C-alpha cells in the first residue's frame, strides 16, 4: 500500500530532440492562439482580437496546457504520476486532435469568410505548431505503465480528481448547450472527443475508473449536485432546459430498459410501448378537453395507475418468455410494440372504443400541479428564474434518482445476481435453483413500471400524446443508448442517452443524415466496441472472451473488493 515510492530511474536525463520538437510545437500553438485568426468577426465566435483569445482559441490553449503537462511528466521528475500515465500515447492523440482542429478551423474560415485571404497569420502559426507536435510526438517511445488498480493515492487526492472531473463535465455541458453555431459546436466536440481520447490513451480514465469504483458514493452525490445545478447556469432560458428535460426522460426510460436488456439479458424491441402506455394513461386521466376517461384523480394516483398499467402490459408480454427465448423473444416484443402502436392508432371510436383519439392523439394536456406548485409557471430561486422546463427537469431528476437507486440496489441484490445468472446461462441458473421464469417476468414488469412512471410525466411535459411518438425507431433509439453507453451500467446509459438526444438537437445542419449516422454507428459499435463506451467489466469480458489479461484484472478487482468488504465488516 505504498503510494509514493521514489523511483530512482530517470529515463531521460537530458531532453531528447523529439521532446524539444514537441515543446516548440506546443509553444507555437499557444502563441498562435494569442494572435488573431481571422479578419471577419462573425466567424468562430470572433477570433480577431490580439492577445485576447476567443473561446475557440482558448480550447487550443487548453490542449497546449495538457501537452505541457505530459511533456513535464517525461522529464522524469514526477515519478508517481509518470508511473500511472503513458504520456507518449497521450501526446500523440493530443497532437492529432490539435492538428485536426486547426485544419478544420482553417477550412471553416476559408468557407465562411469566404476565402483564405481572410485568415490571419495566427491561425497558420497554430497550425504549424500542431503539425510540429504531431511530428515530435510520433517519434517518442512509449514507456510501460503500472496497472492503476495497484496504485493507492491519498483519498483527498482522489476526491479532488473527482471534483475536477465533475466540474469539467458541468462546464462542458453548459458551454456546449449554449452554442447556437454549428461550426463552433462541431469544433468544440472535436476538442472534447480528442482530449478525452488523449487522456484515455494516457491511461487517465482507467485510473479514474478505479478511483470512481473506490469512491462510488462521492461520485454519485457529486453527479447529482452537478445535474441539480445545471438549470442555474441557464439564466432562466428554456431552450436548453427543454432539451435537457427530454434527455432526462429518455435516459430514465433507457435505465428501465437496461434492467431488462442489460441485467436480465432479455432483448426487448418494443420497450417504447411501456413509455407510451404510461403517457396515454396519464393523458386520458388528465384535464385535457380531449381526455377520454372522466375520472380525474390527483397526479400521484395517476402516476401509480400509469405505472401499474405499464407493468401489467409488461407481465403480458413477459409471459411468453416461459416458452420462447433468445431471438424469438426479441421478435415477440417487436410484434408487441407494433400491436401497441397500431392499437392506439385505432381506438378512436371508428375502430374499437374511443380511448386514444386515434392518430390525432390527445393534445392540450394541462400543466402539472402538485399542491399549489404549478409546473407551467416561472419560479425564482436565489435570484435565478427557473422556467417551465426547469420545473419538469427537477421532477425528472427526482424520478431518475429513484430509478438509479432501485437499479443499483437490484443489481447488487439476490435478484440482480439471479438476472445475471440467467443472462450468462439460463440452464445452469435453473439448475442452481434460480427461479428463472419468475425473475424474467419481474424484469419485464419492473422495467415496464419505471417506463410507465416516466411516461406519465412525459405526457404533461410534452403537452400532447400521439401514436407517432411511440414507433419502433424510438425503441431502437433506446436500445442504442444502452448499447452505445454500455450495457448494465448506469453511467453508460446516461452517457448514451445524452449523446443520442443532444447531438441531433445541436447538429441541425446534418439533420437529414442523423438516422444514417445512427445506423452506421450501431453497426460500427457492434463490430469494434460491442461493450459500449462505459462498459461494466463483466460485460466487456463476455465480448472479449479470449482476453485473459482482462479476465485476470477483473478477478483481481473482485478479490480486492471482497477483502475490503470483509475488512470493513
Amino acid at each position, binding site marked *: 500500500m505504498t503510494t509514493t515510492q521514489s523511483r530512482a530511474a530517470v529515463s531521460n536525463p537530458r531532453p531528447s530532440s523529439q521532446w524539444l520538437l514537441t515543446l516548440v510545437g506546443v509553444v507555437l500553438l499557444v502563441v498562435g492562439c494569442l494572435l488573431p485568426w481571422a479578419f471577419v468577426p462573425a466567424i468562430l465566435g470572433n477570433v480577431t482580437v490580439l492577445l485576447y483569445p476567443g473561446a475557440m482559441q482558448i480550447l487550443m490553449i487548453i490542449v497546449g496546457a495538457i501537452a505541457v503537462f505530459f511533456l513535464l511528466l517525461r522529464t522524469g521528475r514526477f515519478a508517481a504520476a509518470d508511473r500511472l500515465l503513458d504520456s507518449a500515447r497521450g501526446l500523440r492523440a493530443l497532437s492529432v486532435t490539435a492538428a485536426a482542429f486547426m485544419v478544420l478551423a482553417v477550412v471553416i474560415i476559408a468557407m465562411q469568410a469566404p476565402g483564405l485571404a481572410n485568415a490571419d497569420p495566427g491561425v497558420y502559426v497554430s497550425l504549424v505548431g500542431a503539425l510540429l507536435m504531431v511530428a515530435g510526438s510520433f517519434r517518442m517511445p512509449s514507456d510501460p505503465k503500472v496497472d492503476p488498480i495497484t496504485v493507492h493515492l491519498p483519498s483527498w487526492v482522489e476526491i479532488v480528481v473527482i471534483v475536477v472531473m465533475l466540474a469539467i463535465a458541468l462546464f462542458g455541458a453548459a458551454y456546449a448547450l449554449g452554442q447556437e453555431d454549428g461550426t463552433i459546436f462541431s469544433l468544440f466536440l472535436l476538442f472534447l472527443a480528442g482530449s478525452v481520447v488523449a487522456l484515455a490513451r494516457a491511461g487517465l480514465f482507467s485510473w479514474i475508473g478505479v478511483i470512481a469504483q473506490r469512491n462510488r458514493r462521492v461520485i454519485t452525490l457529486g453527479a447529482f*449536485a452537478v445535474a441539480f445545478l445545471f438549470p442555474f447556469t441557464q439564466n432562466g432560458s428554456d431552450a436548453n432546459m427543454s432539451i435537457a428535460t427530454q434527455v432526462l426522460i429518455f435516459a430514465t426510460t433507457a435505465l428501465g430498459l437496461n434492467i431488462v436488456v442489460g441485467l436480465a439479458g432479455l432483448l426487448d424491441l418494443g420497450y417504447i410501448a411501456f413509455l407510451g402506455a404510461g403517457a396515454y394513461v396519464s393523458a386520458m386521466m388528465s384535464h385535457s378537453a380531449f381526455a377520454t376517461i372522466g375520472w380525474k384523480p390527483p397526479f400521484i394516483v395517476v402516476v401509480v395507475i400509469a405505472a401499474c398499467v405499464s407493468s401489467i402490459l409488461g407481465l403480458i408480454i413477459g409471459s411468453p418468455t416461459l416458452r420462447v427465448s433468445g431471438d424469438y423473444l426479441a421478435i415477440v416484443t417487436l410484434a408487441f410494440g407494433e400491436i401497441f402502436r397500431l392499437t392506439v392508432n385505432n381506438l378512436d371510436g371508428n375502430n374499437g372504443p374511443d380511448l386514444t383519439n386515434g392518430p390525432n392523439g390527445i393534445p392540450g394536456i394541462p400543466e402539472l400541479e402538485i399542491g399549489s406548485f404549478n409546473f407551467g409557471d416561472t419560479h425564482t430561486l436565489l435570484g435565478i428564474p427557473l422556467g417551465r422546463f426547469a420545473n419538469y427537469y427537477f421532477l425528472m431528476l427526482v424520478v431518475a434518482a429513484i430509478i438509479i437507486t432501485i437499479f443499483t440496489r437490484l443489481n447488487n441484490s439476490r435478484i440482480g445476481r439471479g438476472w445475471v445468472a440467467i443472462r450468462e446461462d439460463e440452464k445452469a441458473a435453473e439448475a442452481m435453483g434460480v427461479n428463472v421464469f419468475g425473475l424474467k417476468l419481474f424484469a419485464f414488469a419492473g422495467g415496464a413500471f419505471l417506463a410507465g412512471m416516466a411516461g406519465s410525466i412525459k405526457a404533461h411535459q410534452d403537452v400532447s400524446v400521439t401514436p407517432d411518438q411511440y414507433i419502433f425507431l424510438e425503441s431502437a433509439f433506446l436500445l442504442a443508448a444502452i448499447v452505445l453507453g454500455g450495457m448494465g451500467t448506469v453511467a453508460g446509459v446516461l452517457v448514451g442517452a445524452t449523446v443520442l438526444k443532444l447531438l441531433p438537437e445541436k447538429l441541425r445542419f446534418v439533420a437529414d443524415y442523423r438516422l444514417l449516422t445512427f445506423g452506421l454507428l450501431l453497426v460500427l459499435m457492434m463490430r469494434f466496441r460491442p461493450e459500449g463506451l462505459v462498459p461494466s467489466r463483466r460485460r466487456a469480458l463476455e465480448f472479449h472472451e479470449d482476453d485473459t489479461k482482462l479476465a485476470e484484472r477483473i478477478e483481481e478487482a473482485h478479490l480486492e473488493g471482497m477483502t475490503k468488504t470483509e475488512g470493513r465488516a
Partner: protein
Amino acid sequence: MQQRSIVRLGVPLAVAALALSACGSRDAGTSSTAAGTKTVKIGVIAPLSGGLSALGLGIKNSVALAVKQANDSNAIAGWKFEVAAEDDEAKPETGKNAATKLSSDDAVLGVVGTLNSSVAQSTVPVLAAANIAQVSPANTNPSLTQGADAAAKKRPYANYFRTCTTDAVQGPFAAQYLLSVGIKSVATIHDKKTYGQGLVDAFTAEFTKGGGTVVAAETIGEQDKDFSAVISKIKPSAPAAIYYGGEYPQAGPLSQQMKSQGLSVPLMGGDGIFDPKYIELAGATANTDLATSVGAPTESTEAGKKFLEQYKAAGYAEPAAAYGGYAYDAAKAIIEAAKTALKDAKDVKSARTAELTALGKVSFDGVTGKVAFDEFGDTTSKVLTVYKVDGGKWIAAKTDTFK
C-alpha cells in the same frame, strides 16, 4: 475517516461554487444593430428537412419574401423585420423545442407555422404562454380553433389564427359538387388522421342531407400499401364515386389499385391529394379523379400571379409549393397587425398582446383572397375550387364561395 466525510460534503459545495461562476462571457456587444432601428422577428416553424420539406421550405421562403418586401417598403418606421426559421421535422416533440426556442427570444412577435395540425397542437400552448401569435398557413383541424367539442365551440388559444379553411368547409363543398354532377351513391375511405376523418365526417353529413347515400364506409391504416382487400369489400356495393379523406401518398396508389381491380369510378379528396405527385402515383388511370382546394387557383387571380412572379424573381431554390401563398398571407397578416401593435411600443415583448388584438382585426386582400379572421381565429374567406385530373394535370373545374 471523519476527514473523509467532510470532504464528501465539500464536493457538492465546491462544484456549486464553480457552477455559479460559469455564467460570464467574453464578447462585448458585437451584435449591435444600426442606430435607431430595432429588430422584430417573425418565426417560422415548418418541416425544413425530411419527407415534407418541400412544403416546409415553400412556407419559409414565402415568409422571407413577405418580410423582404416589408423591409424594402419600410413598412414600419424604426423597425426592421427578420425571419427566424426553425425546423420541426413534422414531429410534435421537435416542434415544441422549436417553439420553446422562439418563445425565449424576446424579439419574436409572431410565428408562421406549422404545416401539420399535430405539430401545432404542441407548439400553440408553448407560444401562448409567451403571448406570441401563431398564424398557420396549413392546419385544417377544426379543434385548433373551435375546441374539442364541435357542438359547443370554444376557442382554446387566443394566440392561434389560420389563413386556410378547415375540413368543416372542404368536405361539404365536395359533397355539394358531387350531388350537383348527379352522383348519389358514394363509398368513403379515410386514414383515421384528424384531417382525413374530419373531411369524411363533414362530407358524409352534407352528402346525406342533400339526398345522397353513403354505401360503404371504410378506414385504412396509415402505413398500408396494398388496398386490394378493402377495395374488394367495397366493390359489391357499386358506388358511383369514392370520397377519400387523407393525403396523396396513399390516395395515389389507392386510385391506381381501385381501377386495376375494375372499380373504375372517380376518387375525390381534399387539398391533401391536390398535388402533382398524386397524378404521378395514380398513373394513367387517374383521369376524372377530383380534389377540392382552398381559395381560387393561385395562378388564376391577379394577386396570385403577382406573388408567383415575385417569388420567382427573388430566386429561391425551392418552389412555393401548395402553401406558399397562405404562408405569404400569414406573414403579411402579422406585419399588417404589427403596424398598429409596434407603433408606440418600446420593445417587442410589450407589444405582443396588442399584436394579438390587432391580428383579430386585420383585413386586406391577400394572395389567396380576402385575409381576415373570425372570432375563433379562422379565416373568413370561404372560396374553394374543385380540380379535376385531365391529361396528367389538375384542371380547375369549378370555383365558388361555400355557403
